């Protein structure tokens, strides 16, 4: 084992211990209170977890894609909302700056994001621009020495606690990406509460009213916001959600195995019943398959393979689908008690659903995967 791999394995072990001690026992409480404690985010920052995917040169931990995926699973298994912070801060925003930022932007933003001095959120979605992300209506005007931003964003994870937003806006012709500091005058946020899931993800609406954005805060080129920055970000986001699906599914399997080993009906533990065994066998097989897809996607991403994005789409589609199936089965194995917050399966069941919607719905993934297959497996 090389020194680098050994160090990174140690980081993953440390993340696992941290998640088991400081996140998982409190996940239900976070869900009920609808917030992540500031102290938790600070503890994660002090461990370097907010810079897990950022190269060491910019103050991060420098995990490669496979390791970052495993890290995402560890955090996601402990608490999906805590994982969602990693998804937006690291996968969506830090990765975009790393890919599209100028050297000056990387040197300015990445160390602050890696240390947790700044938290980031990804402001793409609007009431009328969901799956049709290119249809954003938030607009910008070039005022010579700065841009002026006006508009409204919705369903923005961590918007209520983030310090900087990666915002996508149009001037009527082009969609452009901007790094916008939340402290800028003209920005207001309104928390979105009582959601089915992601309740402690600090989701909020953001309004921008004549917000001045410095010229140097464009990420990528003007007009490159959708084709390049959004696509890069969502590709990383899908990779994160794929592992999030494995995480939730594994959490549900752990819960159903432990329940089935303890619960007695008809005079014996319910794991003796073959129909219960069938559910556990199916869940185990699906999780192993989903994790294998995620690992394959991670290896292809690390190798810069040209089909890495499509493999990631498949991993995201499959892992979110099986997470929904397995959490449904986990509630079934628990019976009536599975409807209560006494066991985690009720929360995992709710959390699984959102994965089939965010970062491109399952139907959008199916469309892209089908297009890929209809070309790749056609014999001329």
């Amino acid at each position, binding site marked *: 084992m090389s020194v680098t791999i050994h160090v990174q394995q140690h980081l993953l072990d440390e993340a696992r211990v941290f998640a088991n001690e400081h996140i998982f026992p409190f996940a239900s409480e976070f869900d009920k209170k609808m917030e992540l404690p500031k102290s938790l985010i600070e503890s994660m920052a002090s461990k370097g977890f907010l810079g897990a995917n950022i190269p060491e040169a910019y103050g991060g931990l420098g995990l490669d894609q496979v390791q970052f995926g495993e890290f995402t699973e560890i955090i996601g298994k402990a608490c999906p909302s805590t994982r969602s912070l990693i998804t937006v801060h690291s996968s969506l925003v830090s990765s975009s700056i790393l890919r*599209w930022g*100028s050297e000056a932007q990387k040197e300015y933003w990445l160390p602050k994001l890696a240390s947790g001095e700044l938290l980031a959120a990804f402001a793409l979605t609007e009431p009328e621009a969901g799956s049709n992300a*290119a249809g954003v209506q938030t607009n910008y005007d070039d005022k010579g020495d700065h841009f002026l931003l006006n508009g409204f964003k919705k369903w923005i994870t961590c918007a209520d606690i983030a310090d900087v937003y990666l915002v996508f806006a149009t001037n009527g012709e082009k969609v452009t990406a901007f790094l916008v500091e939340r402290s800028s005058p003209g920005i207001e946020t309104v928390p979105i509460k009582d959601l089915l899931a992601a309740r402690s993800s600090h989701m909020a609406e953001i309004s921008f009213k004549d917000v001045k954005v410095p010229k140097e805060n464009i990420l*990528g*080129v003007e*007009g*490159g916001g*959708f*084709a*390049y920055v959004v*696509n*890069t970000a969502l*590709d990383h986001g899908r990779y994160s959600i794929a592992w999030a699906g494995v995480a939730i599914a594994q959490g549900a399997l752990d819960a159903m195995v432990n329940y089935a080993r303890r619960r007695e009906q008809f005079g014996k533990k319910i794991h003796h019943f073959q129909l219960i065994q069938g559910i556990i066998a199916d869940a185990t097989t699906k999780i192993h398959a989903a994790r294998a897809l995620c690992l394959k996607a991670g290896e292809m991403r690390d190798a*810069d393979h*040209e089909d890495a*994005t499509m493999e990631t789409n498949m991993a995201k589609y499959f892992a979110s689908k099986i997470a929904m199936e397995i959490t449904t089965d986990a509630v079934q194995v628990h019976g009536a008690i599975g409807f209560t917050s006494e066991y985690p399966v009720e929360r995992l069941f709710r959390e699984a659903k959102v994965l089939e919607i965010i970062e491109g719905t399952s139907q959008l993934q199916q469309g*892209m995967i089908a*297009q890929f297959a*209809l*070309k790749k497996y*056609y014999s001329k």
Partner: protein
Amino acid sequence: MELNQKIRSYIEDNLVVFEDEAEFTDDDNIFKMGFVNSLFAMKLLNFVEKEFDITVENDEIDIKNFSSVSKIVQLVESKRN
């Protein structure tokens, strides 16, 4: 293979419509014609950099430089020169 043939061949392999439904000249905008999906922009950029061993700077990464076979040929030739 000629430069434009290599690029055309790669685009044809990544069309979201089938060959018998897609006819385009070297000057046609493949994105506006809906022959490729939005994910293709990144894939095309990676292909051009790897295949022709060039680095496209961030300020050159504008979709209009990749919108047709001719535009991509122009970009690659300008980088080689």
